[in-house]
């Protein structure tokens, strides 16, 4: 379900240091979410103390009740803002995700990324829920995201909410280690024409967008985008890696309403070619159409309904041809009962028609299958006391493979004053099987001996859901008007992780759930407005994840299955400095700890951006990437992996 977290769950610092009484400000900073509640509670806050930007972020109608609850309900949430993205110089979605201190982002090659929170990173990472404007984009083929097929016009992103930790109650199966929620601006905020382009030695992208008005208090935008990237070079030899790509995309969004009713209709279509060694190009294509309706029925009741259709194609020579059609409908109601209960409940249904044409090396069997998900959820946020809030929720989700899975959560929050929030939570989330867990066979046409097909890999007929129990405590505070921070400690217990083992019922290997694991760590970040026009931020994650197979079992796929290849720590520092009203100098220093298997040395990277507003309409940016050293690697087997070089890009954004 979608969800604008109305909030910067972290007390964010105001961009205009100043006169505002900190307490007032903290109310909003601790979560713009609160505005909805304030309206209900009829406490008039002093909006005059807020900056223009903060005013522009207040929801005057509260449509997404659930999201408010999520933000107010304590969780480890970081919100990447449009401003953060603009000043990072990021040109693709995965690069923009590096801005979230609670995400591990490792670039594998020109088009593949390994992205996760709390460990288990690899390019087939499968424990995140990822949504773009409410549309689920992780693939039912392997529970992971084809990052090479996901794109939006970066200038149109409103914010990206990143939740680390189990979020199954609100977000459903797959929100095991976190949720990435990419939200674009409403059409009314992208009016007029925009042309943006970036050019570097090995990549370029161009986007045009036009926004206008529609009858009946409506707005629309349409956009077109092209992006391409050259092949990267291999570590050591410097040979070309055959991983370059190009992609064209177009789409629209229209929003109507305001006041008590809102309607959104949006869609995108894309087509692209991705290189891979030894074969012709991978062809990708897709289109989606989404409608969303929000209606406020009174101060205490909000309804929201959404439906979308999504079609994707991936023709990967030597592997498979997949055509996937997804239909998803969902509805939710948020209401306040008896003054102290804020309830959100709802349900949804998703159908995925997956059509795979198999190649010879491996096969998804049956090639064609229909997958169904049906869910109902409810969450109650109970004000126990003025300072204490308890949130209890449960989701029951039925999937085609394992039947009904339950995802409960309990969260307790203590807010001693407007500037501090301490919280604790316990939740359970599952990763329901995807096609790769159950239906993957190799080779496609095995020899048959005595009527028994001699598969080397014989699917996972007994594979069940992977489960996490996530325990967290967190604290966030804004001790000074210009300083805020958030700290979360987590302890995660995983069971039934995927292992590959000797088939007990025949030849070959099968997927089973004989892995267990335990992770713990700390996530923290902070923001400091050091001076007017100079903001510093920092993020650090230190973690330890240990996985093992159960006694008496042997995992034959150590490299791709339960094995985690995660750094023990990673951190970043950012400095956003306004030289004057027209010029900005922004620096991002990142450090990722070493990976053990396969070994990847720790690396440091420095990105720099010099932005120059030539006029209110034209902004140029000179972007330097990976300036720290001449090249580094981030993931993969030694000598077979891509390395990323120092690079310079020039970006122009022109608004009319």
């Amino acid at each position, binding site marked *: 379900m979608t969800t604008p977290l109305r909030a910067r769950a972290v007390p964010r610092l105001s961009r205009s240091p100043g006169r505002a009484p900190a307490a007032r400000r903290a109310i909003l900073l601790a979560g713009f979410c609160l505005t909805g509640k304030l309206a209900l509670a009829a406490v008039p806050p002093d909006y005059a103390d807020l900056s223009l930007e903060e005013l522009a972020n207040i*929801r*005057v109608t509260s449509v997404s009740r659930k999201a408010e609850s999520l933000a107010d309900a304590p969780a480890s949430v970081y919100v990447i803002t449009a401003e953060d993205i603009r000043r990072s110089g990021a040109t693709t979605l995965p690069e923009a995700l590096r801005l979230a201190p609670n995400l591990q982002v490792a670039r594998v090659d020109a088009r593949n990324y390994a992205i996760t929170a709390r460990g288990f990173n690899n390019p087939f990472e499968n424990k995140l829920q990822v949504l773009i404007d409410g549309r689920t984009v992780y693939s039912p083929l392997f529970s992971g995201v084809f990052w090479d097929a996901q794109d939006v016009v970066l200038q149109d992103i409103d914010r990206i909410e990143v939740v680390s930790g189990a979020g199954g109650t609100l977000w459903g199966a797959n929100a095991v280690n976190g949720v990435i929620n990419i939200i674009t601006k409403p059409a009314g905020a992208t009016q007029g024409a925009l042309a943006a382009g970036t050019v570097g030695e090995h990549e370029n992208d161009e986007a045009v967008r036009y926004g206008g008005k529609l009858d009946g208090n409506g707005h629309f935008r349409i956009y077109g985008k092209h992006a391409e990237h050259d092949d990267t070079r291999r570590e050591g030899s410097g040979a070309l890696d055959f991983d370059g790509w190009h992609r064209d995309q177009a789409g629209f969004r229209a929003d109507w309403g305001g006041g008590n009713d*809102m309607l959104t209709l949006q869609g995108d279509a894309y087509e692209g070619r991705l290189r891979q060694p030894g074969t012709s190009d991978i062809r990708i294509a897709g289109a989606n159409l989404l409608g969303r*309706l*929000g209606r406020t029925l009174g101060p205490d009741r909000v309804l929201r309904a959404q439906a979308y259709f999504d*079609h994707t194609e991936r023709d990967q020579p030597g592997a498979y041809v997949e055509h996937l059609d997804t239909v998803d409908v969902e509805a939710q109601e948020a209401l306040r009962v008896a003054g102290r209960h804020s309830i959100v409940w709802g349900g949804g249904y998703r159908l995925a028609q997956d059509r795979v044409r198999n190649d010879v090396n491996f096969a998804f069997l049956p090639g064609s299958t229909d997958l169904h998900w049906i869910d109902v959820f409810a969450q109650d946020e109970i004000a126990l006391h003025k300072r204490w809030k308890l949130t209890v929720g449960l989701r029951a989700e039925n999937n085609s493979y394992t039947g009904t899975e339950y995802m409960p959560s309990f969260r307790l929050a203590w807010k001693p004053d407007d500037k501090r929030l301490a919280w604790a939570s316990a939740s359970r989330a599952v990763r329901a099987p995807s096609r790769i867990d159950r239906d993957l066979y190799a080779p496609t046409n095995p020899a048959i001996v005595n009527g028994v097909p001699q598969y080397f890999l014989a699917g996972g007929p007994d594979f069940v859901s992977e489960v996490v129990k996530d325990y967290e405590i967190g604290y966030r505070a804004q001790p000074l008007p210009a300083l805020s921070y958030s700290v979360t400690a987590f302890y995660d217990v995983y069971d039934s992780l995927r292992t590959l083992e000797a088939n007990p019922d025949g030849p070959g290997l099968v997927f089973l759930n004989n892995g267990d694991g335990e992770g713990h760590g700390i996530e923290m970040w902070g923001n400091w407005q050091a001076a007017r026009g100079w903001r510093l931020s920092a993020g650090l994650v230190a973690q330890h994840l240990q996985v093992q197979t159960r006694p008496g079992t042997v995992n034959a796929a150590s490299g791709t299955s339960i094995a985690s290849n995660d750094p023990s720590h990673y951190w970043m520092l950012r400095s956003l400095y306004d030289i004057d009203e027209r010029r900005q100098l922004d620096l991002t220093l990142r450090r990722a700890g070493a990976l053990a298997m396969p070994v990847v040395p720790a690396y440091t990277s420095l990105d720099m951006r010099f932005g120059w507003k030539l006029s209110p309409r034209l902004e140029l940016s000179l972007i330097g990437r990976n300036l720290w050293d001449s090249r580094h690697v981030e993931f993969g087997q030694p000598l077979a992996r891509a390395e990323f070089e120092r690079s310079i890009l020039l970006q122009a954004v022109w608004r009319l």
Partner: protein
Amino acid sequence: MKIRLLISAWCIACCALLVVARQTLAADTGSSAIEQAVKAAYLYKFLGYVQWPPGAFVKPDAPFVIGVAGSDEMLAAISDLAGHHQVRGRPITVRRVAAGSALDGVHLLYVDEQGYAQADQLLKQAGRKPILTVTDGGDGGIIRFVLDDGRVRFSIALGLARRQSLVLSSRLLSVAASVDEGAAK
């Protein structure tokens, strides 16, 4: 074939939804108290990001004057806020105005274009003076409030501001949902 059917069905469903939604939306124009409070706060903030020509104030400590042509609730929200705040050392006074009122001394004029029948006439009157016009539900003002995804944002007609000898700070422009040159040169 199946896909094409699905897509067609989807498009029809969306169109139906649109029609229904449009009809229900038309009936709903009410704005909430929180929306008014946010708009009132914006008006107050705007005062700090605009430069009036010399002569707009009779004395160095003369108050900012906000003229309001809108609902009683909006007038109350603005008055409430004005009573507790100053801008650059100047107090703020609020008065109700109507078409034909003398606008002398008014620095900021808020007009609810939906709720006030003679909005056009009033804006025309203000158009010859150094008055920052802020409009709601229409596109006659220098600054126009727009509601986006449940949030109050604003767009700016820079040409109009120039014609009325007002200088808008770049910060104001950077927060605006859109900036256009406006009707006038």
